[in-house]
Structures are given as C-alpha cells and as structure tokens.
C-alpha cells in the first residue's frame, strides 16, 4: 500500500447555512410552498444565508506522512476533519479514507454516565469500530493507560472530569487504526498525563500510518508533521513544510493585527535573520531590522520600539524589551538599520521575533511590521523547561567521618 494515498481530499467544497434551519414542521410548510412555487435553487448556488465553509480544498496523505492543518478560528479546520471522518458529506468533490479511520476527536462522547467504566470501554470501543475480541484483548492495556484500575467498575458519572477524559483518550489511543485523524485533544488530564498522551500520539504518528493533525499548538505541528496546509476562510492559503506554513500563518495573523487602526511614527520595512540556520539552543542569533522614522516622531517615546520573542507552542511572550532599554537610540528622522543579537537560552522549539510600538491613541503596545520565525534546535545546552537559567551548582560533602561511622 506504500505510496498510494490513504487519505484523499479532492476539490472538496462544503456549504453551510447561517442562522436557523427549519427546526419545526411549522417552518417547513411555508418553505415547501415556496419551493413548489418555483423558487428552487441549484445546489451549487449560494442563497443569502449560505456560505462556503470549505472551498476547493485538495490534499493527499500517504503512509509515513503526517499532514498538519492550521489556520485561524473559522478557517474550516474542524469542518475538514468532520468531512474526513464522514460525519459531514461534501457539497462538491470527493473525500476518501482507505482503511479504518481512528479519530482522536472528543474522545469520551459516547460514554453513558450510568454505565461502569468497563461497560463504557466496550461501548465506546464499538462506536469507534472495534470488535469485542479486540477490546477484550487490549482491555488491560487501556485501563492501565488511563490509570483508573481501581474505578473500572464504578459508574462513569462518579468519575472526575480528568478520569473521564483519560479513559476516553485511552480507548481512542488503542484502536490501531489504518489512518489517524487528530483534533486538539492534547489538553487531556493533568500535565503528566498530557505528556503521556502526547508521547502516545507521537508513537502513533511515527508508526508509519498516515496522519492528519489539526492543532492551534504550532509546536505540535512543527514537531509531528511532515507537511502542512494553511487554511484561510475555507481556502488553502499555503501548503508546504510545517515551518513554511507556520511562518505564513503568523505573518497573516500579524497583518490581521496591524490593520487595527493606529498611527505610528515608525514604519518597518524588513526583519531578517542574518545568522546561519538552524539556531541551536544556547547560541546567539543576529537579526537585522530596516525602517524609517517619520516626521510625526517628535518625542523619544514615539521613536522607540519593543522587541518581543514568542514561543509558538504556547503563544506566550517569553521576552519583551524596549530597544531604548537595550541602549538603542533611533535617529530623529529618516531611514535606519538596527542589528539585534539575541542569545537563545531556550528549549528547542519554534519561536518568533516580533516588533511592537506604543500606540498613543489606544494607550497600548501594538504589534506591527514584519516578524520572523525561527526554529531552535537542541544544542550545547541540555535542559528541559522553557529557559536556561545559567545555573552554577557547587557541591561539597557535608558528611563527617563520625556520622559515617554511626551508620
């Protein structure tokens, strides 16, 4: 089967209606009369209340490949997953999955609160398409993974949310599918279980089965996927490597931000990485920024900008400092060039450098201009966590000879 696509999405369009559909028979009768009166429409046309949630999207996933789908909310990611798993039927086009599709989507949806954990494992397993024999064979594994051995014969309604989610994930993670579809389910249970779940997903992703992953955690896409698709308002805006798509995604979301109406005395033209890539953990990277100081820049505050570094896995700002605080003073007027050197004492991952200026009107910092994304790879600094705190550790033995003798 290697080489032939297991997941095919061929020029798929999907139409949705905004607002209420006919919800009661009372609404149906007038609508049917209207239709009979000859005001029917062809199915490809849009009426006032309809819109395309997915427009002409095509992709293929072969064994050994993992496709990441990213995009802002409402871009059509979930619709694509639902089309893939056959919950929705495309308005136009074709989507096909060869083999059993395992979906890590809303994993405890089939649980019945009055049934025990054991009964629910069999029920949910059957919903996901498992045979009883198969569930029996993997039952102990599932329970052990979910860590609820002691409560397996307790009705699920007495489970905590975490136990519920853990059991749901454990079942979905043990169906040995031919094709895997993953929605953001990694926020399951506590931190330790999340790591365990992520490891399990990674294991499934690297086992060679084709995978489609939808996530807002760009880091996940960067580390798990072989290629990616960026969606914008139902269309494929970009396809390529995960890093390319993540970059394009950030670019577009930054542009979206800067359309927020603000007047700036500063304008930035380009921000580039000057160092060789990839940057390794603990190494310094050089960036060059070019821009122009406008005429309106009368005071020092309007001639300042803030450098920010964001971890894309979490979207969290990990560093923010004003250029002035770093000793950089921009010229009073005219074009300028600014070199920024940063030491990436951070864990391997994807980071972005962005610029913000003070907006006098809204009294807040506004992200503006270009940004860059860079991948930091494992290097000389070996640690885990978010940032390296340059530890200095000394050890002295405090064991006296007398204490040693008394043992």
């Amino acid at each position, binding site marked *: 089967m290697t080489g032939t696509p297991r997941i095919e999405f061929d020029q798929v369009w999907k139409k949705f209606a905004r607002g209420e559909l006919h919800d*009661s*028979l009372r609404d149906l009768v007038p609508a049917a009369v209207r239709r009979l009166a000859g005001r029917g429409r062809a199915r490809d046309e849009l009426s006032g209340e309809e819109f395309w949630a997915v427009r002409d999207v095509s992709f293929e996933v072969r064994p050994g490949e993992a496709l990441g789908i990213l995009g802002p909310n409402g871009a059509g990611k979930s619709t694509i997953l639902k089309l893939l798993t056959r919950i929705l039927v495309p308005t136009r086009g074709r989507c096909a999955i060869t083999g059993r599709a395992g979906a890590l989507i809303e994993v405890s949806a089939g649980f019945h609160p009055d049934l025990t954990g054991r009964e629910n494992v069999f029920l949910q397993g059957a919903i996901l398409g498992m045979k009883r024999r198969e569930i029996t064979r993997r039952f102990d594994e599932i329970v052990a993974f979910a860590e609820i051995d002691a409560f397996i014969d307790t009705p699920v309604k007495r489970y905590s949310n975490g136990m519920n989610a853990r059991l749901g994930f454990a079942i979905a993670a043990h169906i040995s599918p031919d094709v895997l579809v993953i929605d953001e389910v990694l926020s399951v249970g506590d931190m330790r279980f999340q790591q365990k779940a992520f490891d399990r997903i990674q294991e499934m992703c690297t086992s060679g089965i084709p995978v489609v992953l939808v996530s807002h955690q760009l880091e996940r896409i960067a580390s798990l996927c072989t290629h990616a698709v960026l969606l914008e308002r139902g269309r494929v805006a970009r396809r390529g490597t995960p890093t390319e798509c993540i970059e394009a995604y950030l670019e577009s979301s930054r542009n979206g931000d800067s359309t927020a109406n603000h007047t700036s005395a500063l304008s930035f033209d380009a921000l580039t990485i000057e160092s060789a890539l990839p940057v390794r953990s603990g190494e310094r990277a050089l960036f060059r920024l070019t821009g122009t100081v406008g005429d309106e820049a009368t005071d020092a505050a309007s001639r300042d900008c803030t450098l920010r570094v964001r971890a894309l896995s979490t979207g969290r700002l990990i560093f923010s400092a004003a250029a002035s605080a770093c000793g950089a003073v921009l010229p009073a007027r005219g074009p300028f060039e600014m070199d920024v050197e940063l030491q990436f004492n951070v864990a391997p991952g994807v980071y972005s450098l962005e610029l913000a200026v003070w907006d006098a009107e809204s009294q807040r910092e506004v992200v503006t201009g270009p940004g860059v994304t860079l991948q930091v790879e494992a290097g000389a600094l070996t640690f885990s966590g978010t940032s390296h705190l340059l530890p200095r550790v000394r050890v002295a033995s405090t064991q006296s000879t007398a204490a040693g003798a008394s043992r």
Partner: protein
Amino acid sequence: MTDIVLTSTLPVERRRSLLGDLHEIAVDELWKYRELLYQLILRDVRIRYKQAVMGFAWAILMPALIVAAGTLVRFAMAYVGGGHVARDAIAGMAVKALPWAFFVGAIGFATTSLTGNLPLVSKIYFPREVLPLSATFAQSFDSTIGAVTVGIALPLLGVHYGLTALWAPVLAVLIFCTTAGAALFLGCANLFFRDVKYIVQVLLTFGIFFTPVFFEPRMFGPLGARAMMLNPLAPLLEGLRLSVVEGHNLLAPLVLATPKGDVIVWSPWYLAYGAAWAILGLIASVLVFHRTEGKFAEYV
C-alpha cells in the same frame, strides 16, 4: 483486518439505486457495525434496569396496565350493552396489549434516539441506523419477558394453544418490522423537526383508541370494522388475537353474520395488507433515513 473504504461523495455523482442502497446499508453498515448495535442494545437494556426499583417487573407493568384499563372499559361496555365480559375478551386484550406496549415503548425511545445522542451524532461516524434500531431491539427484550409471562398466563384464562398459535412468531416479526420502520422514520424526522416528538407523544397517547387493543373491529359494524383495519397495526394485532386466543387459521377468512349485515372479522388480505406495510414501510424508512443521513450532523 479487512479494508474498509470510507468514501463520501456528492450524492448526484454516486449512482443511487434502490438495491444498491439497501445492500450498502445491510452489508457495509449494519453488518460491519453489528458489534456496535449489540453494545448499544446492551447499553439501553442495562440503563433501564440499573438503579431501578421495579427491575424486571417493569417489563410487565405497562402491558398489565393496558389490560387493566381495557378490562375496565369492557366492563362498562358490557354494563351498558347488557352483556358480560368473557374470559376470552381479557385474554384477547392481553395478547394485543403486549405488542402495543412494545410499539409505544420502542417509538418513544427511538424518536429521541438521535437527538438524545447529540455528542455522538455530531462527533463520531457510525451508521446512524443503529440508534433507533437499538432502541427497538432493547424494547423487544422487555417484550420478550412480557411475552413469556403472557404465554404462561393465557391458559389460566382458558386459552388452549392450537397449531394456529404458530402464527404468533410470524406476526411478531411483522410487528417488529412495522415498529422498526416507524422508529427509523420518526427518529430521523425528529432530528430535522424538533416538534415531531410532541406530535408522536400525542399520537401514542391517543393511538390506543384507533388501534384495536381494548376492543375488536367487529364491534363497529360492517363498515367500521374495515375502516379500523386500515391502521397498519390493526391486522397484525387482530391476527395475533384470532390465531392465539380463538384458534383461527389466518389463511381462512372469518365472516360474522349480524343483523346489520356481514362483518368481515378476518380475511387473508388483511394479513397481506399488514405485511405490506411492515416490509415496504421498513424499506422506505431505511432509504429515507440513509439518504438524509449525510445531513444529520448539520441539522442537530
């Protein structure tokens, strides 16, 4: 493991034929997901008996109440008409109360089976037919307990089982088909139109007056008897009573001469009529269900 190909295409591109669709439903969906159907039936039966005071008595309560209510009605009728209530009449009601209780129970659960499993329908793929079907099967579990009870009780009411009682399993299958057809259709209809369940509730409440459970169609005279038999369930219920309680062979007609004219109590055509509703109704419902299935997740 066998390869399953999940394909969704634009309906007009796929050639739709009646037999093709039925094959797809039976082989690709129900047979492949028979395990799920079994698990859902198990779930429906389990939750009915979990944390329940009544236990298995629940399965008999509903038919017993119907028989009690019917007996009351018949006593009133007998008092006004100046007759008496025969043990036969009570036995006849018991035989018909059971399938009626089955129908009411199954339709009640099946109508809301899709909307009641909203997270499942909108999140996970499986052939949706299994939801109303499992509600129907779960109800037949109750009815089987009821049938055993009635079967034991009938001789106490003076019924002698003859060979004609062998019609009972045939009629039971037909009643099941009629119910399953209605269950699929109404479950699907309630998903699109939320007021369907209220309509169904009303119909089930008053349906007993339009279905021969408390009484026999012949009580309505020559024309009334025929009109009553138009109800798809009527020939099946009457057939059950005639074959089990009265020992009548359903392939033979039964005509009763009254002062107002001949009343057709039974005709083999009634059986054919009931069977046609059961089988064609089920096929039609399955097709309607199957062809609207793709829209379920959008409408829920």
